[in-house]
């Protein structure tokens, strides 16, 4: 009986979620700039509902945004549960060092370049993902915990393991936004993917969010 139980996500729910993401990402942009000195522009997010079976193809398609990409992935869990993926052009780690503006980065010259880029990707990824997810959570009156960020290289075992880690029988909501780091002019893609368990909770939370406005 429960085989095809994709909870329908109505257009209205989609629109509410869209506005929540707009607000969350806008708040995140402001806080990142004013508190953490990271200047980033987040475009209006788009919401898509698809079967997780279609997700690998979708991801592969979206990651082609750049010919060579670096991926930072991080899971979050709580009432709101899922994965976040940050897609950046390859080798952007080096340019990202500029936005971090650390003295500490000087002793980076001692470390191999690959390690250094990975470090920067993880740091920026962790903060950016946390800011966006955190703001969505704040609006939905919940909070989540995170697994450590992971840098995944295309054509690696980690990459295939990551793609295969999604259960194809489930439904995913993909919240996607294109962003740009101002100082260094790098575009990237941020995806939040919820799993089925979180969808039911999300629907309730969305209606709860709208209650004061009914």
């Amino acid at each position: 009986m429960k085989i095809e139980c994709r909870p329908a996500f109505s257009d209205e729910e989609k629109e509410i979620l869209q506005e929540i993401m707009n607000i969350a990402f806008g708040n995140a942009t402001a806080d990142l700039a004013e508190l953490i000195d990271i200047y980033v522009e987040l475009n209006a997010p788009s919401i898509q509902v698809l079967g997780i079976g279609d997700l690998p193809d979708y991801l592969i398609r979206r990651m082609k945004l750049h010919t060579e990409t670096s991926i930072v992935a991080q899971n979050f869990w709580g009432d709101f549960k899922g994965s976040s993926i940050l897609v950046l052009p390859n080798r952007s780690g080096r340019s990202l060092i500029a936005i971090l503006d650390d003295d500490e980065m000087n002793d980076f010259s001692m470390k191999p370049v690959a390690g250094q880029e990975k470090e920067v990707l993880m740091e920026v990824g962790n903060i950016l993902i946390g800011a966006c997810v955190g703001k969505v959570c704040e609006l939905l009156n919940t909070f989540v915990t995170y697994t450590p960020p992971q840098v995944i290289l295309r054509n690696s075992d980690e990459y295939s393991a990551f793609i295969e880690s999604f259960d194809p029988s489930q439904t995913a909501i993909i919240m996607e936004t294109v962003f740009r780091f101002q100082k260094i002019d790098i575009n990237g893609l941020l995806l939040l993917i919820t799993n089925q368990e979180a969808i039911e909770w999300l629907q309730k939370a969305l209606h709860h969010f709208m209650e004061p406005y009914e």
Partner: protein
Amino acid sequence: MIKKILIVDDSPVARRMLKSSIPQNRGYEIYEAVDGYDGISKYQEIKPDMIFMDLTMPNLDGYNAIAEIKKTAPEAVIVVMTADIQQKSISRVIELGAFLVLKKPPRTKIVEDVLIKVEDSLKSRSGGKQ
């Protein structure tokens, strides 16, 4: 006195949220526009007493819409509604002539306060001129 209010926002949910945050027992006439262009033409057509304006919108964004409206109607009262409340963004819209900036999501109490402020400003303006 505020009679006509124009809400410019591409998101139907955002318009709904704001509409329901505006007190309903004062007989305001509320109009809606879905992007910057729509906002400009509705402004000219309706001549509202005040505008709530979103910033990030497709086709024509809030910054450009404010500039355009202010060009022909410097007296227009525009309250900006945005989630991005960076000082930089705030100064930019204030420079363009916005009356106030409100952080999204709207809260009834805050929207009411803003309406009072706008009333006061309209009163003192008409009192001062005439």
